[in-house]
């Protein structure tokens, strides 16, 4: 059994705090020999914004030809999908928001065309992980990002209850998260628990 993990690193800044958090989770996942990880930095993914044309409601596909041609299929194939983003201006950064808006094609498939996103036997066997960092130390700094994250996972057939969150505030300068008292340990624990849960579900 191979467990397919697909990870979108959403920060425009490479190897910054949110990507470091993602890397810690992935490192703990990949310790398991059955796990295969693909990490996609969105800076290199060539994903255009959604044009709002609604053509996918009729065509069941997007009329744009770009990186989403590849990631559309990978999103369906993956057992676990991670997304990391910094918080900019109290919301998710623009790059991951572009990815989230482009999964509209799955929404059209699911709710307009009433077609399955994943085969019925795989439903409930996919998990999501959202990772975020913020410079601000406010407790509510992640609140506005969550509805879009839930929307993203919902339309790709990952249920609300199957999304894990690890969100670290008060880390701003590059590398600040390395000095955070619990972030690395929490990320490591999260990676392991998600893989353990997936194995349980896939075996069932």
């Amino acid at each position, binding site marked *: 059994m191979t467990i397919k993990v697909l990870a979108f690193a959403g920060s425009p800044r490479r190897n910054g705090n949110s990507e470091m958090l993602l890397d810690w989770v992935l490192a703990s996942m990949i310790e398991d020999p059955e796990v295969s990880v693909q990490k996609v930095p969105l800076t290199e993914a060539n994903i255009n914004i959604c044009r709002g044309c609604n053509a996918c409601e009729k065509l069941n596909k997007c009329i744009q030809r770009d990186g989403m041609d590849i990631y559309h299929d990978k999103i369906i194939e993956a057992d676990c999908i991670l997304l990391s983003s910094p918080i900019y201006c109290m919301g998710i950064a623009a790059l991951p928001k572009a990815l989230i808006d482009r999964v509209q094609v799955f929404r059209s498939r699911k709710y307009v065309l009433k077609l399955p996103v994943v085969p019925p036997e795989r439903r409930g066997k996919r998990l999501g992980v959202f990772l975020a960092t913020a410079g601000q130390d406010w407790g509510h700094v992640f609140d506005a990002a969550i509805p*879009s994250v839930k929307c993203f996972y919902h339309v790709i057939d990952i249920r609300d209850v199957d999304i894990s969150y690890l969100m670290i505030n008060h880390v701003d300068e590059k590398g600040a998260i390395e000095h955070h008292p619990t972030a690395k340990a929490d990320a490591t624990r999260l990676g392991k628990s998600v893989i353990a849960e997936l194995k349980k579900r896939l075996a069932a």
Partner: protein
Amino acid sequence: MGVTVLGISGSPHRHGNTETLLDSFLEGARSAGASVDKVVLRDLNYSPCKGCNACHKDGECIVKDDAPPLFDRILAADCLAVASPIYSMGITAQLKGFIDRGQYLWARKFVLKTLDFPGDHMSRHKGIFISTAGQDWSHVFDGAFPSLTALFHDAGFEYYDNIVASNMDEYKGIKNHPTALKEAYAKGLDVVRVLEKIKAQ
């Protein structure tokens, strides 16, 4: 000096529900005698914020494209109306990409302390968010407000009002909504009168 109103359309879809609602607001403002400008983000060329934090050192954005000149126009306006449809429970990536580029204003305010909006500046500058959503949920706009708050406050605007219309899927478009376009027109008229009074004081 007359009241200046700047409308920014953050919808990738031209002349759709959100832009039509913005147009109605701007029409109201124009009828009240304001000088009105409209910018469509789709026609501009700008990249998202790179998160490089260079602006934290000198208050300038190192990316030279259409975003900083638009922020200059924002800073010169009395009223700023920003419009975006709700996509996936938030503002569009197009508008978010622009808002994030205002980081250099935030840096001027809070890191370098070279930008200050003294006294009653904020109450003399009104920011209005205009939006539509396909969904019928009352909370469908909630994820949008905090980023608009960030934009308005960083640029010196009081977050004055929202003009929002949900359930577009059901109505089959803003033109069939019973009140939204009239409300937007009335609010455009009203905010200009309020700003005229403030300016006359």
